[in-house]
């Protein structure tokens, strides 16, 4: 019999994260007959609401309610899970900033295998699970074999597995709050500081001219601004540009920045990490300009230009201006 498989559910303001239904498909890619159990931690009526909705998709929903779990502190949740999970459990967690916080340490404390940022599964070979991952900023993929006989914690890349929206299960919520017990941590959650609004709202723009590391120098941002002006769009960027303080955080597209839904997205010198693409919704027409033909952005773009943006973009801008 296959090991019992669990899905850690992230939720906020009474709504389960998109990954909640993606983890069901991921589980079925691991064990085709899997019926994963949802693990939901939190407090109050928000928690009840999330759990009852999930019971349409998960046969069992384990609810852990406690004031101590009102905010998902990874250290507290790790202690909870170590106490309540069976010893050979396979636990699926979204690979986001919470999953990165929780899972490596959880795997150590469960004495289980850890697989980070899984993007695919190719079944079991004996006691080993064959997993697909990516390395080198998504430029190459790898097969990884993990011995999961003693259990596993597997972080699943968000957005890769199709959400299971069948809602075909009449599942039950099992209240396990009495098992929470006394939880203490050496790390205490204080508050969430909300990102500052910028001078433009890139989430409302139809045309984004987005720059990445390929812009090379702060002075070159002007090249993108000129193109943006010519096409009637606005300049946005990927993370390295914000790290370098060349543009403000409010211009950053990605999971750690803004989620945008333009009609046209021009990615200039952006490699296309999954964190960046995670902020791009609504199926825009994507034009990628990058001098590295191996850049992952070309896998998702509609149109690609393999060129140095510093040479190509001024030519493009000039031709657009001429045509007006």
């Amino acid at each position, binding site marked *: 019999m296959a090991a019992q498989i669990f899905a850690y559910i992230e939720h906020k303001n009474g709504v389960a994260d998109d990954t909640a239904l993606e983890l069901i498909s991921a589980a079925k890619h691991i064990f085709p007959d899997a019926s994963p159990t949802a693990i939901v931690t939190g407090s109050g009526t928000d928690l009840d609401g999330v759990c009852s909705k999930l019971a349409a998709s998960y046969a069992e929903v384990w609810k852990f309610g406690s004031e101590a779990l009102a905010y998902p502190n990874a250290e507290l949740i790790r202690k909870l899970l170590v106490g309540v999970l069976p010893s050979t459990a396979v636990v699926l967690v979204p690979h986001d900033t919470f999953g990165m916080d929780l899972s490596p340490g959880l795997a150590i404390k469960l004495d289980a295998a850890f697989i980070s940022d899984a993007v695919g599964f190719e079944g079991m070979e004996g006691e080993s699970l064959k997993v697909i991952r990516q390395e080198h900023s998504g430029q190459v993929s*790898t097969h990884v074999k993990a011995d999961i006989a003693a259990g596993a914690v597997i972080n699943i890349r968000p957005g890769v597995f199709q959400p299971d929206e069948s809602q075909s299960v009449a599942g039950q919520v099992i209240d396990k709050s009495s098992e929470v017990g006394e939880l203490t941590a050496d790390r205490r959650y204080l508050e969430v500081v909300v*990102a500052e609004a910028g001078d433009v709202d890139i989430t409302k723009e139809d045309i984004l001219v987005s720059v990445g590391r390929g812009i090379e120098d702060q002075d070159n941002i002007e090249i993108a601004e000129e193109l943006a002006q010519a096409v009637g769009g606005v300049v946005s960027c990927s*993370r390295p540009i914000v790290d370098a303080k060349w543009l403000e955080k409010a211009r950053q597209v990605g*999971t750690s920045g803004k989620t945008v839904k333009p009609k046209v997205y021009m990615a200039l010198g952006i490699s296309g990490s999954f964190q960046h693409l995670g902020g791009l919704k609504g199926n825009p027409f994507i034009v990628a300009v990058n001098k590295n033909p191996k850049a992952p952005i070309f896998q998702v773009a509609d149109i690609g230009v393999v060129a140095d943006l510093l040479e190509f973009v001024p030519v493009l801008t000039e031709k657009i201006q001429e045509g007006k």
Partner: protein
Amino acid sequence: MEILVCVKRVPDSAENEIEVNSDGSDIERDDLVYSVNEWDNYAVEEAIQIVDKVGGAVTVVSLGDEESEEVVRREMAMGANNGILVSDEAFAGSDGKGIAAILKAVVEKGSYDLILTGAQADDGAGQIGGMLAAMLDMPYASVVNSIEVLNDGKLKVGREIEGGNQEMNEIALPCVLSIQTGINEPRYVGIRGIRKVASVDIPIWGASDLGLDVSKVGESGAGVKRIDYFVPELGEGAEILEGSNEEIAEKLIDLLKAKGGIK
């Protein structure tokens, strides 16, 4: 404050086209440009800034082959006080747990208040800091983008969470933090800086120096193993426009006009 920063020598993915070799056993490593993992470099800068404020020392450790010495030296040129190279053939093929176990032995050989890693490296796993913390029974925070030293043996740390928001936490020392890029502006390291540390002795520690059971680390101890590298069969991918820059620009303008990309 005594700070240990774990750094890794990696192919610089911004500078390289990474290709899989003919039998898929590795990437093509000839002609790759290597550097210190970008996240780790931010971690070293942060450690130096903390020590500048509150005193103490920064030690940089790298686990890898002999060539990793160059990144230790580079980070010492930045201002780290001490460097250690951890290198042993028995360590080759270690999985995340193996690497964390080796680093745990390094931590226990010294006396550190704070241990920093980069939030992730070339394999994109982002696992070592969290594993190391759990093995050491220390608190942990990942993707940290601000650190403030408080008076009572605690830090106030900001974590970068989704949507550009920042989650603030108070964390007790000693602890392990994984550092996100953008937390600071790493200083430039010039030739003069490198020259200053060119003859500094960097000790090399192997399994016996660290009292490690070699069956628990390296290939033999690894429960999670990379089998091969491959290039996935893709969907259609982008239509690549060919021609001179002028020709491509004209084609692109037509396409953009059709898609509402020029107002």
